[in-house]
């Protein structure tokens, strides 16, 4: 699919009010507009940039308000638009020939920030993403002013790779975040607990050393002595110490309520945290319930039509009675049903019913596991309540509110949620909070409790038990953290491997595209500057740093430098121009349209001629709008493109109330004579174009059939296409008109005998090779004389032709021929 603009209308934007904003491009698709400075031609570029802008921004106006330095988007609106109550809008009619589609889109100027591109253009801009409105300042801006990041971002946008850039950016974010969540920080904190509670006797995380310290301390009280080799053995040791402590109290008769409460709490801790403890029961119950729910989903998928169970039960009973001639439900003979036979139906129903049985079983299992989960949770809640009460009795202030909060969260967790997966994340979180409370917070709280009136050894022992409990908790957590750390590292390595693969592929894709782009860019540059000052231009994208560097070889291969520091203004602009044109050619194939707004200001005549060559040769398949204040460049384009389907218009004036005054570039006879008098090199084309238009008009008026069809290929015509049919038609006019009034005239004889009628139109720069100007003058003089043959002798108006009567007449009604 390739789109082109058939019609364009710009209203109340910049200097264009209503007139001069309409362009019919359905026949001639490209246009060159010549205008002196301050005639409003750049308003066309602004209007088109706005039309195709994804967010309504016109870059050189900026995003600011009406008072901002660049004027912002409000500057787009014509200053009289409010007063005259005219909407500012750009309307466009786009055509696609294959498949055929016409699309009319209007973008009403919206000053607000939320200004998305109209739907009808959204997909077109996506399939043709490269910059299409080129201004002089854009050329330099890309090469010199933009930093490598901006260049990369701009190039990505042209290539339609913004999403890839976004993906790569998210990968980097994820990688950074993964580094931050490494559990090293918590690891350090928990190890500090061990240092503190071993009385600074341990200074590195070495499990055997820590356990050895625990053994030595415990053996002061235990006989026979113990050797602790694992965290589990430490737990057993702590229990032995607790028992010994309690015995000491009993023996000394100092057993009191505080100790009883503390002992109860220690029991809760054991009940809650050991293997097959309450917390583990809850975790396992959750896992079973989630598993059961998954089984229900599987069974449901197998028994798709379970809602018809009752119907199927009845059907099975019916079928079991014996063969039936027709389907008992729809009364269709079996061979005409989809299944084909009663036996098939029976098999199908049996299988389906079996699926329903499996589903029922799975649903029962789910209900049962859900009940177990709730029961386990209620038990845990009871423990948490008791734990809070006991802590309250001991005056441990920070535990009860935490325990109550967790308990109340558990109480409401199933409210309104019928499936285990609905509570899974929250439930797991509460279990983790419970563990932290019991294993980390509670031992610290217990350590702070002093039991009054206790014997000295028991006090020391009680304190040791407190330390060992904290060490045990810290060691358990450290072991978990070590496992987590190892797992994170594995996942991070896996992630990096995948991210790296995506980054490599992205870089490879970008390099592939840039290589082609670079080759085209170099070719265009050399076309405009055929010297050897820049043997190579390099575009180097880097997907990891998201930068694009632009470098040139300066006068020598390998002397690679940034263009801004070494090239002239014109050459810098050429690199920008070549890059923009290459991008548009390579990436805007689906909508080959480009607007060149005054791009030749920094060039001399020779280079302007080469740019005109680029426009006529390298953009031959493009729809182009060129605006220029340089008449020489305009004429260069005209001499190359006037027969290639281009419109050439001049803006001769501009007023605030009327906007630009646009005129066709078809010159009047007096203007052509003036060109010839000045030996203007464009006089040949002007004469030829005038003759074509005149003959074309006369063929139409005299009903002379021509092979030439005016639209859409009128640039294919030649003078011969009109001359022959016109003369043949004249021969048919009654009254012996041709023989008596035309054939004998010198102008007719000279023009019809002039074998070079089609050659003179191109001005030859070398007068010694081809005396063209004289020839043009001669043809023009004779042609003017010829046209006078078709004017009324009495009033000088052009004669009319009556096709039916095959005669000539004039609306003045007087004598049309000289006597």
């Amino acid at each position: 699919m390739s789109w082109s603009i058939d019609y364009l209308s710009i209203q109340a934007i910049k200097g264009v009010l209503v007139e001069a904003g309409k362009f019919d491009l359905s026949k001639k698709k490209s246009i060159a507009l010549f205008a002196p400075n301050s005639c409003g031609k750049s308003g066309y570029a602004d209007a088109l940039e706005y039309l195709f802008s994804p967010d309504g921004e016109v870059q050189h106006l900026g995003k600011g308000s009406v008072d901002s330095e660049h004027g912002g988007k409000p500057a787009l609106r014509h200053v009289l638009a409010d007063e005259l109550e005219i909407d500012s809008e750009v309307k466009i009619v786009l055509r696609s020939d294959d498949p055929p589609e016409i699309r009319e889109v209007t973008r009403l100027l919206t000053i607000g920030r939320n200004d998305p591109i109209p739907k009808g253009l959204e997909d077109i801009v996506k399939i043709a993403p490269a910059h299409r409105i080129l201004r002089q300042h854009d050329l330099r801006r890309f090469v010199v002013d933009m930093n490598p990041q901006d260049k990369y971002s701009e190039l990505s946008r042209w290539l339609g790779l913004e999403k890839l850039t976004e993906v790569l950016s998210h990968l980097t974010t994820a990688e950074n975040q993964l580094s931050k969540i490494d559990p090293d920080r918590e690891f350090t904190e928990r190890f500090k607990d061990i240092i503190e509670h071993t009385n600074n006797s341990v200074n590195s995380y070495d499990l055997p050393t820590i356990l050895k310290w625990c053994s030595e301390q415990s053996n002061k009280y235990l006989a026979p002595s113990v050797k602790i080799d694992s965290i589990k053995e430490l737990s057993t040791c702590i229990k032995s110490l607790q028992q010994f402590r309690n015995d000491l109290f009993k023996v000394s008769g100092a057993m009191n309520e505080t100790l009883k409460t503390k002992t109860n709490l220690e029991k809760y801790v054991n009940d809650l945290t050991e293997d097959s403890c309450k917390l583990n029961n809850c975790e396992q119950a959750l896992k079973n319930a989630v598993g059961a729910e998954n089984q229900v989903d599987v069974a449901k998928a197998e028994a798709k039509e379970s809602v018809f169970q009752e119907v199927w039960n009845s059907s099975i009973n019916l079928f079991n009675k014996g063969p039936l001639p027709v389907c008992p439900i729809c009364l269709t003979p079996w061979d005409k049903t989809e299944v084909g036979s009663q036996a098939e139906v029976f098999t199908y129903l049996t299988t389906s019913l079996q699926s329903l049985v499996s589903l029922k079983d799975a649903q029962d299992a789910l209900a049962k596991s859900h009940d177990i989960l709730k029961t386990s949770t209620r038990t845990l809640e009871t423990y948490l309540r008791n734990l809070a009460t006991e802590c309250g009795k001991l005056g441990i202030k920070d535990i009860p509110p935490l325990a109550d909060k967790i308990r109340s969260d558990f109480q409401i967790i199933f409210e309104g949620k019928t499936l285990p997966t609905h509570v899974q994340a929250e439930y797991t979180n509460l279990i983790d909070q419970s563990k932290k409370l019991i294993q980390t917070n509670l031992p610290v709280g217990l350590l702070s409790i002093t039991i009054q009136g206790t014997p000295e050894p028991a006090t020391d022992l009680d304190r040791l038990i407190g330390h060992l409990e904290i060490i045990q908790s810290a060691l358990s957590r450290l072991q978990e953290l070590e496992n987590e750390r190892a797992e994170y590292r594995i996942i991070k390595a896996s992630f990096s491997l995948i991210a790296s693969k995506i980054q490599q592929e992205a870089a490879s894709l970008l390099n592939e595209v840039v290589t082609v782009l670079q080759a085209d860019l170099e070719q265009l540059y050399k076309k405009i500057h055929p010297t050897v000052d820049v043997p190579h231009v390099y575009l180097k994208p880097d997907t990891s740093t998201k930068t694009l560097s632009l470098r040139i070889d300066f006068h020598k291969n390998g002397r690679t430098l940034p263009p801004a520091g070494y090239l002239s203004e014109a050459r810098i602009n050429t690199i920008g121009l070549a890059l923009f044109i290459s991008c548009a050619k390579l990436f805007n194939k689906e909508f080959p349209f480009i607007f060149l707004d005054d791009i030749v200001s920094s060039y001399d005549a020779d280079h302007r001629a080469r740019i005109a060559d680029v426009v006529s040769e390298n953009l031959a398949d493009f729809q182009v709008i060129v605006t220029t204040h340089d008449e020489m460049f305009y004429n260069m384009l005209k001499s190359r493109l006037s027969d290639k389907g281009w419109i050439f218009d001049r803006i001769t004036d501009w007023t605030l109330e009327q906007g630009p005054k646009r005129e066709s570039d078809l010159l009047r006879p007096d203007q052509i004579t003036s060109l010839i008098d000045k030996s203007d090199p464009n006089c040949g084309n002007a004469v030829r174009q005038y003759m074509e238009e005149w003959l074309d008009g006369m063929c139409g008026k005299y009903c002379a059939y021509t092979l030439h069809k005016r639209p859409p290929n009128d640039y294919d015509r030649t003078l011969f296409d009109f001359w022959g049919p016109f003369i043949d038609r004249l021969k048919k006019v009654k009254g012996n008109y041709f023989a008596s009034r035309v054939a004998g005239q010198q102008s007719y004889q000279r023009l019809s005998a002039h074998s070079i009628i089609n050659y003179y139109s191109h001005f030859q720069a070398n007068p010694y090779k081809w005396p063209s100007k004289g020839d043009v003058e001669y043809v023009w003089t004779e042609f003017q004389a010829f046209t006078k043959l078709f004017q009324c002798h009495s009033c000088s108006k052009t004669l009319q032709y009556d096709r039916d009567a095959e005669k000539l007449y004039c609306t003045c009604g007087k004598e049309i021929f000289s006597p």
Partner: protein
Amino acid sequence: MGEKIQYKSTSELLTGLFDKELADQVTYDSEVVAIIRKHLGQNSIHSRAGYKLSEELAELGKRRVKEKRQ
């Protein structure tokens, strides 16, 4: 209009990668691949996709530790 470049779109590039190269479970961790695809392989990408991706990867780490413990 010059040489036609057939370069892949971002979606084509990512879909191709996820379906082919990254589907190799020996070289790449399939769960990590699935999480990356979930967050970055869709037509529309959440503005905080990078953060969400890292959070889900961290969850995966925790889950695996628990599974191993059990």
